[in-house]
């Protein structure tokens, strides 16, 4: 019934989201592996609502229609935890009751077995964002940039099917912001992950380099 | 309080175990009683509001276990009437065997009520106990007549009580102390706010009312009979005239009362009251020993006499451990237990025994007791007034409550 089934990447098929009968999002788009779709709009336009829909946490007050696929899997039919959508918010949201390494170990899929193997994968992931050796640190003692990197390493460690980015750079200062943009998009390309980016910052869209959809205008 | 709940539960469930009648143990065959008692558990229902009395009962339990193999369980009551209510409820529910109360600390109205309703083990057993031989029934008439009710061996004497007054000689002039109820009124007039009595129906407070009634009533013989409603107002007028005069002169002008004797004791220690009273002559000495009262507190009594009575132990008709209860009553009557009880350092409750009947060794136990500086010697305690018939207490309590209990 649609052409998306045999193709790869993230496919949003006639996704509509309405609040009290008023449609705020209506979208059909494909995001290829490694590519970025940037959704832009003023605050309150429903950008984050779209992410919540794809991630599976849409507030029941919204009425949603349409479907979302990753590769040939309809993720909108799945529970949030079975969708494997890696999310980055504007705050790093590291779990404050776990060490840096603990945060990553929590994210690693269960099929990585054995203490040693898991620990090795965790250290590797940390090194991948340039933070080798920080695994025993309390997240609260990290700098803002370090926290953002750990958050990225954590989301990648879970082997997601796609990345959902909710203004992930907006709280970083200008220099860090540029660095993180490069790092996140590089990692996404490296892992072949389709990325859905929500932002109101033109510079983000420019750095992402993919399609841009404007909503709420 | 839980006894009441139990009795209610019994009623609610309509428990009626119809067991065959068995004969009561006979204290004249004491060896059989002892044999039967071994291994029994005696539920002793006794007022539990005093730490030193509870400790004494605990001691008795240890000795009974050691010597006779009887386990004593102190069921601590707030009000003896609840034990009576339990037996009443058990009888109503047809539980004539294996009742939950084995031994009750009792006297006065509760005894009258139990005896009247046939709730006590019969036939009269108290005077058949081996320990009865030492009891001073001759010079202590209240041992055979409890609040005018003939005892008839249905309860075993445990201790003596007499109304005595306490004051602090460091601040109260001895010469001015009252000698009778009228003297007390005059003293209160001269020292307003320094006397009070616990709010009836507290037992000590009601006893004060009876003391005044006994002094003021014209025909004392009336008190030996049940209240006659027809002339109640008339014969009690002197009492209530007296209280009308006294109450405004009392502590807090009679608008509040101490709740019981311990509260009154604290008020003496705080110098709020100058004269207080208790039913136990050794009470002041024991309070001094505990640091609750200064060692300048002394006792006095009314020359014309004060109320006196005896407190007893009784066994319900349906007790589960009758032999054990007999053994307990007999042990508590023994010179050893009685002497220990009389020691103000332990409890300070006067004995029911006649020292003249004891052998030298047992008499020495009593001679060795230091009664304390604040305790009057037995010969200084003055004449004893008999308790009025139990109906008087109930009636004057109601009348008091109507007149003064809701005054504000």
């Amino acid at each position, binding site marked *: 019934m649609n052409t998306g089934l045999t193709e790869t990447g993230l496919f949003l098929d006639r996704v509509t989201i309405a609040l009290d009968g008023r449609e705020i999002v209506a979208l059909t788009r494909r995001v290829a592996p490694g590519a970025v779709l940037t959704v832009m709009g003023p605050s309150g336009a429903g950008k984050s609502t779209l992410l919540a829909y794809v991630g599976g946490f849409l507030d029941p007050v919204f009425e949603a229609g349409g479907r979302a696929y990753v590769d040939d899997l309809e993720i909108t039919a799945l529970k949030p935890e079975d969708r494997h959508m890696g999310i980055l918010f504007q705050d790093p949201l590291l779990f404050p009751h776990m060490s840096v390494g603990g945060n990553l170990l*929590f994210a690693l899929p269960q099929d990585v077995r054995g203490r040693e193997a898991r620990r090795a994968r965790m250290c590797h992931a940390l090194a991948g964002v340039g933070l080798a050796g920080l695994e025993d640190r309390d997240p609260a003692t990290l700098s803002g940039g370090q926290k953002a990197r750990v958050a990225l390493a954590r989301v990648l460690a879970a082997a997601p099917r796609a990345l959902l980015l909710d203004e992930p750079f907006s709280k970083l200062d200008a220099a860090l912001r540029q660095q993180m943009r490069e790092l996140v998009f590089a990692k996404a390309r490296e892992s072949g992950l389709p990325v859905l980016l929500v932002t109101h910052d033109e510079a983000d869209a420019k750095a992402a380099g993919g399609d841009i959809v404007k909503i709420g205008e | 309080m839980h006894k009441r709940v139990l009795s209610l539960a019994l*009623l609610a469930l309509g428990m009626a175990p119809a067991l065959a009648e068995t004969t009561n143990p006979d204290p004249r065959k004491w060896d059989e009683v002892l044999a039967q008692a071994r291994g029994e558990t005696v539920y002793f229902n006794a007022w539990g509001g005093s730490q030193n009395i509870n400790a004494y009962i605990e001691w008795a339990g240890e000795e009974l276990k050691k010597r006779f193999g009887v386990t004593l369980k102190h069921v601590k009551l707030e009000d003896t009437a609840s034990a009576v209510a339990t037996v009443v409820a058990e009888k109503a529910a047809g539980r004539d065997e294996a009742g939950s109360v084995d031994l009750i600390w009792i006297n006065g109205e509760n005894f009258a009520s139990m005896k009247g309703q046939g709730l006590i083990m019969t036939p009269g057993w108290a005077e058949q106990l081996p320990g009865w031989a030492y009891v001073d029934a001759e010079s202590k008439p209240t041992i055979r007549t409890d609040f005018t009710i003939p005892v008839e061996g249905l309860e075993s004497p445990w201790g003596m009580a007499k109304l005595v007054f306490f004051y602090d000689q460091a601040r109260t002039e001895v010469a001015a102390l009252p000698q009778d109820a009228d003297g007390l009124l005059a003293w209160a007039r001269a020292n307003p706010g320094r006397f009070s009595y616990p709010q009836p129906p507290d037992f000590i407070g009601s006893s004060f009312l009876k003391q005044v009634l006994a002094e003021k009533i014209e025909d004392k013989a009336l008190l030996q009979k049940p209240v006659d409603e027809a002339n109640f107002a008339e014969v009690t007028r002197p009492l209530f005239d007296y209280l009308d005069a006294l109450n405004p002169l009392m502590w807090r002008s009679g608008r509040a009362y101490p709740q019981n004797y311990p509260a009154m004791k604290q008020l003496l220690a*705080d110098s*709020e009251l100058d004269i207080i009273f208790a039913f136990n002559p050794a009470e002041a000495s024991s309070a001094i020993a505990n640091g609750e009262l200064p060692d300048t507190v002394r006792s006095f009594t009314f020359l014309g006499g004060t109320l006196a009575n005896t407190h007893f132990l009784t066994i319900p008709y349906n007790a589960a451990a009758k032999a054990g209860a007999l053994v307990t009553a007999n042990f508590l009557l023994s010179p050893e237990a009685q002497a220990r009880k009389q020691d103000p350092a332990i409890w300070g409750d006067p004995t029911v025994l006649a020292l003249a009947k004891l052998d030298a060794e047992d008499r020495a136990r009593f001679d060795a007791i230091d009664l304390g500086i604040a305790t009057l010697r037995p010969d200084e305690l003055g004449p004893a007034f008999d308790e009025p018939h139990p109906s008087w207490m109930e009636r004057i309590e109601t009348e008091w409550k109507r007149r003064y209990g809701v005054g504000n």
Partner: protein
Amino acid sequence: MLSRLGPVFAIGLLTAPVAFGLAGTVLPAFGFLPALGGMRFSLAPLAALFAEPAIAASALMSLLTGLSTALVSLIAVMLFTAAWSGTRAFARVQHLISPLLSVPHAAAAFALAFLIAPSGLLIRMVSPELTGWHRPPDLLIVHDPMGLTMMAGLIVKEIPFLLLMTLAALPQVKPARTRTLIAAMGYGRIAGFVFGLWPQIYPQIRLPVFAVIAFATSVVDVAAILGPTTPPPLAVRLVGWMNDPDLSMRFLASAGALLQLAVTALAIGLWIGLEKLAARLRDRCAGAGLRLRADAPVRWAALAVMLLSALAIFAGLAALALWSVAGLWQFPDALPASFELRNWLRVLPHLLEPLRTTLIVALVSTAIATLIAILCLAREDEMGHPPGRGALALIYLPLIVPQVAFLFGLQLLFILIGSAATLTALILAHLVFVLPYAYLCLKDPWRAFDKRYDQLAAGLGKPAWRRFLSIRLPMMTRPILTVVAIGFSVSIGLYLPTVLIGAGRLTTITSEAVALASGGNRRVIGIYAFLQMMLPIIGFAVATLVPALIFRRFRDMQV
């Protein structure tokens, strides 16, 4: 899902005991109690009730106590918040007063009595030097016929409760912004607050205020310790009838409980009338544009009242602790002549049994209550919305229906099913009162949890139960333990449920302390009240130390 059971349990536990209890009270009040031979309905118990001497005076005393306690404590809290919120003094007083919430009512009442009695600590401190008194003045302070001391005892305990409720409601009305706005129009601080912010805050603390009225109209322990005795307030008298060995007095007690229900309902009804009057007065003043800028005296008075109420309790509690180790301590000595541990040594063996019951009942009822509260809140998360007004009123039900009115019937129910005076029954009875507090105290921190943590963990592929156990619960450790400490202190302070359901066979530190109150042995009362106060403090200390210890390596988990 397990969480579906949360609301079921909560509603069952909160409404069933109240409903059955009320039925068990109302039926005997009309003469129906088959167990005691009351087989047909009659008005005899009510007739007997109204024939009791001065029953109207007792009822009136209860009514006035409820209204004045609520009025004085609410006004004190309102003026204090109006005058000082947002300042350093406010934060300090808040820290001073919050611990008072966990001091059981009975302990606070003892503290006050030991402080202000004619032979109390205050007069001792200034005598004989300032007063010339070598012996206590004959003044009727404690147990005064007007019940003023009793009201004071209730007010000092209700102030912390209403203050904390107000503090919880305060952030939602954005006080700083509104205050600036109103100040710019030239309104005095208090007038601005009362006209601008209070109308939004009050609806949120209205149920707690009703709970205060219900509690104060029907309180037994504080009334027995501080209240008038000739005659006592209604609730004290009817518990007396309930305790009467004569079982037929139950009919009278039930009729009294019915009257108590009417008195409390009337008090709340009158209060609603007062609310309307006050709102009209406020609107008239605001409409007239009264700026009321010279409010400095009121501001300072509000601060003084708050400080005084806190300091009175603390000083009284110190006096209690002192009495527990005092040897002879005669008037007017400010300190005992000697100190000794004898009182403690003598009381200690008798403490163990009530202490054990206290701890078991408090821990088990709190654990169950916290679990149910968590399940309820987890269910709310699933539903995506908080419960409506009706459900919230339900949660307050056991706090708004006077305890005596339904505990009598509840006791009867337990007797009929044969579990009176069992530990299970007592825990269940405590649960009825602990659960509302557990829910009310947990809901704000629970809802404040950043849901994105949960979404993020879902994105990491973790199922709901795993997210709940590994993320939500650990991150909520501190608020949950705080709720446990609150529930623990609520259970420890419960007097009437313990006395009626424990039926004297199961006693707790609080029921023992109140029973000893009439004896006036200050040393023993001092020991019990000291323990009553220490147990909640230990609870809160554990609630603070445990998370600090578990998460000592993680700074953001520290506060």
